[in-house]
């Protein structure tokens, strides 16, 4: 691919690193207005909602596959299993499903 590829890679690396690094190092221990820090504390749970849906529904062409995966994962997590077992259990259940 030649040197163009490596320049592109450098650009991609910077474009990825900057959004990761700037807030973490600049906001470093600064006191933010309560409403702002309240919103920031909400971010993790909102992000998770947005990351899960609708993507999980479309992991395979068969929509039922993703919906089944979501239901199983929610069930396993709800009964209190550790994250690792939620992941392994859901994969195992879907593997069985796609075999039949």
């Amino acid at each position, binding site marked *: 691919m030649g040197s163009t590829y490596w320049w592109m890679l450098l650009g*991609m690396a910077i474009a*990825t690193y900057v959004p990761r690094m700037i807030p973490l190092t600049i906001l*470093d221990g600064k006191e933010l207005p309560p409403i702002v820090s309240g919103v920031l504390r909400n971010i993790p749970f909102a992000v998770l909602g947005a990351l899960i849906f609708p993507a999980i529904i479309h992991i395979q062409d068969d929509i039922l596959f993703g919906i089944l995966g979501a239901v199983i994962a929610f069930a396993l997590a709800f009964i209190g299993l550790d994250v690792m077992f939620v992941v392994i259990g859901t*994969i195992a259940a879907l*593997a069985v499903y796609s075999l039949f």
Partner: protein
Amino acid sequence: MNTTFSQGLKAGSSIAIGYFPVALTFGLLAKTTGLSIIEATAMSLFVYAGAAQYMALSLLATGVAPWLIVTNTFIVNIRHFLMTAALSEKVEPAPRWKKAIYAFGITDETFSVLATQKNRQITTAFAFGVALIAYSSWVIFTAVGHVIGANLPQFLQQAMSVALYAMFIGLLVPSMKGNRKVVLLAAIAAAIHCALYYTHLLSTGWSILVATLMSAIFVEILYVKSTKNVERFTEQKEVN
């Protein structure tokens, strides 16, 4: 309490499992796109962003200009501004250069694991552990995917495509239990993201950012207002 480096490695191990099929497929696709093993592995090593890397491959294959690929990468990763800003509220004080190093390891997945820790503060050692195991899996399995060039058995490949989402659910649900605010935050963000996705209003990079921010702000205003109402109510009672 999760505070040490090795506890970080352990907490990050479900990410490593989740990355395995995604990185393997990336290595394989990179090979079919015409990248050498060095070029493919270097992308995982220096860029380290799943969605952006996949997008770069498909754009390279269609001959899109490199600067457009870089712009795309930035847009896809803009959401990390929000995540690392949120994380800055939770991490223990540390020299800037240390934060600058583990900041490189912040992905959707490592952020989710770090931000859902019950600890009041995330230690630097723990953050390094989570970041390192996830990063290693991503880089190593990119190279492996390029070398072996073969897929996993079809049924396993399909089943493993759920791994990262199952992990997100496994991280979210314990916080949802008995906490209506968390349920509301996740549900509203999911609903907004679905609406944006199915109407094709925004590209994925923007839509996750917008859905997250709208939900976080809306719920915060809702809760601030309701506490104010409660305060006003109790004040009135006291006056009476």
